[in-house]
């Protein structure tokens, strides 16, 4: 018992240091993980916003008005008359997906 009492300070200090470091490390890990979660959330949000913007851009690019202008001005096309249009019928044995 006396020996134990004599050496108490020796094992107490490393234990305290170990727990202290452990606590600090855990705390840092929590902060880092929280930061990562926030970053990821922001990325998700940004990606969602980008997707929305791209969807909007796609819709604008497919706009009939834009197509009309492009066809007429850039590609020098004009509206076909009724007799110039060929309506292709879907083959009976052709699947819907095809």
């Amino acid at each position, binding site marked *: 018992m006396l020996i134990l009492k004599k050496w108490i300070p020796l094992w107490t200090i490393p234990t305290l240091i170990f727990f202290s470091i452990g606590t600090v490390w855990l705390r840092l890990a929590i902060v880092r993980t929280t930061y990562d979660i926030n970053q990821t959330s922001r990325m998700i*949000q940004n990606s*969602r*916003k980008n997707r*929305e*913007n791209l*969807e*909007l851009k*796609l*819709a*604008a690019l*497919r*706009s*009939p*008005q834009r197509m*009309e202008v492009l066809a007429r001005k850039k590609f020098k096309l004009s509206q*076909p*008359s*009724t*007799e*110039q*249009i*060929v*309506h*292709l*019928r879907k*083959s*009976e*044995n052709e699947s819907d997906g095809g």
Partner: protein
Amino acid sequence: MAADTLPFEINPDYGTKARLTALMLFCISVAGLIICRAAYVQIFSNPKLEKLAQRQYHTQTLIRPRRGTIFDRNGETLAVSIETKSLAANPGKVQNKFLLAKTLSKIIGLPQKKILLKLNEEREFVWIKRHITDQEMAKFKKHHIIDGLGDLISGLWLVNESDRVYPHHQLASHLLGDVNVDSEGIEGIELWMNEKLRGQIGAVAAIKDALGRPTFIDTAAAKNIRDGEPVHLTIDASLQFEVEQHLRSAMKSTSSKSGTVIVMNADTGEILALTNQPTFNANTKRGQPDARRNRAVTDGYEPGSTFKAILAASAFLNGWKSNDQIYGELGSFSVQGHKISEAEAREKFGWISLKKMIKYSSNIAAAKLAMKLGPDKFLSTIRLFGFGTKTGIPFPGEISGRVPTRKQLTPLTLANVGFGQGILVTPLQMTRAYAAIVNGGWLVSPTLFKNADLKNSKEREIQASTRIFPHYISRHLIDALEEVTKEGGTGIPAALPGFRIAGKTGTAQMVDKRTRRYSREKYIASFIGFAVGVEPKIVIYVSLTEPKGKYYATQTAAPLFREVLASVSNYCSLPAHDIVPSKLLAHQLLAQQQEQGVGQGLGQGVGLSGLKDEVRISQSAVSLTLTSDNKLLPQYQPSAADDKAGAGDRKPSGWVMPSLAGLSPREVFQILQGHHFKVEIHGTGVVAGQIPIVGNTLADGDVIRLKLQDP
């Protein structure tokens, strides 16, 4: 031992020590009590304290879900929500209000005074500007309103919001409607389907920071927030665009005040296109209130002669025949002292059949027929067609129109209603009435939504059609209406080559608001019609209000109808038949081309016998079509035998392979349309070789292999 001496020695510090000990014990006790109390507060539950703590750092925040997208029938996006930011302020935390107001005024374009007024409000939250644009955000950074880390200066913050965008601007704006700054529907489909589109707004628990801003939200609860659902419309964005173009062009050429076009599937009631002019752009939130009205359902008008079809239906329902005669009074007829005249003073009809009454649009014959039928019978037919009641289209603001009551139907009113005056109808009601004529007597409910998007079963029930007259009456009416676009009829400009067109013109006088009498200057010109014998059955309604100069429907609305029908035939693949590009017969065209040598090249290729084959084929099964570049193209025509088998049947039992040499793939497909051949194309350019060779008989399902080479 002296008496005044004590038996023990008194330490002078004893009293101090004792006091100190007592003090220490007291302090320890107090500390112990505090620790015990703290432990108790921390460890044991106390609802009152919990409530106090929660009030300090907990808050409820409203989460607006993403508003649903509106699509057309082909999945084209018509209205979409995007995330945007709005600028808000806590006036108490703003330091230099005057300077901030000045800077913000430069960036967001609001008056400085207005911003300063907001910043001086005694509130913790004020909106500065909703929906900040990307350009404005860039300017915030430039003017250091936002620092490099993305933080705003003290007292300002950005709130995430949703903004509604219409990527096609004015396209179908009357149908789509508009939303307010909080993305709540205020007009059109946005309003009608608001509940479905906006989703479920929910309050979610959140932890707030020192400034009271929600920082962390309850993600588990946030997952339960339901985003708005998409809505699929029946309109076709491309067709809608074409129709809008045609209407705009017609408005310009006729200097009309307003116009409406409706394209509806007569069998299903699906609206394929619906447009009004003038229109507005919901993105800009500007525009006259007048231009924002969907006139097709919210405005009533006197239909004029287009209503004669309803009168004819009433006559047929009451036993009249197409050839039954009415006396036209040679252009002069009076009822209750009021003169009824024909549209043109030179029109003086004697005995005229019911069919011709429609063809020539005789007002006197119509008035007399209405009077002969009597108010009860005519009124009953009018009600049968759904006039005077809403069509049930899922759209806000629809009116039911106004049909005179039995008491109001004096002989004069009855005569007027006979040719479409003195009755108030909506363009959509007229479209629906004509749909009943073409679909065999079924009164359909017009709809703008695909079935899955209907709100509830009640709306689905409304959609169910009711039969209002038998099929033979439909045939009689179509026959009569078809006469209108034939020689001598009032609707010839509506005729489109390749189609049998049935329809009716209407030039209705408008009431002058000033004089409260029918104006001799203001008219509504309209045409309602459809292509006969084609599927799908599409009814087209066009009207132009107050056209200047030429105001007759024959000159204004009928040509617009033809343009719209041409677009509809392209988009809906209506099978045109008997297309003859000019009045010349096919063999005459061929002869002309032979003389001009245009046919050269047709006979080149592998295993071909040249132009001679073309001549033979043209005589047997293929007619000739002139393309835009004046090139002659063979085209399949049903033979007499085919005609007997059925005019609509375009599948002969055997088909003689023509020469395709020198033709482009487009021209080849034009020849082969209507058949079920499998075509394999190798290479690019024009046809240089073909299997099977000329003259072989083909049946549906056979393979045609073409070798293409550069010409």
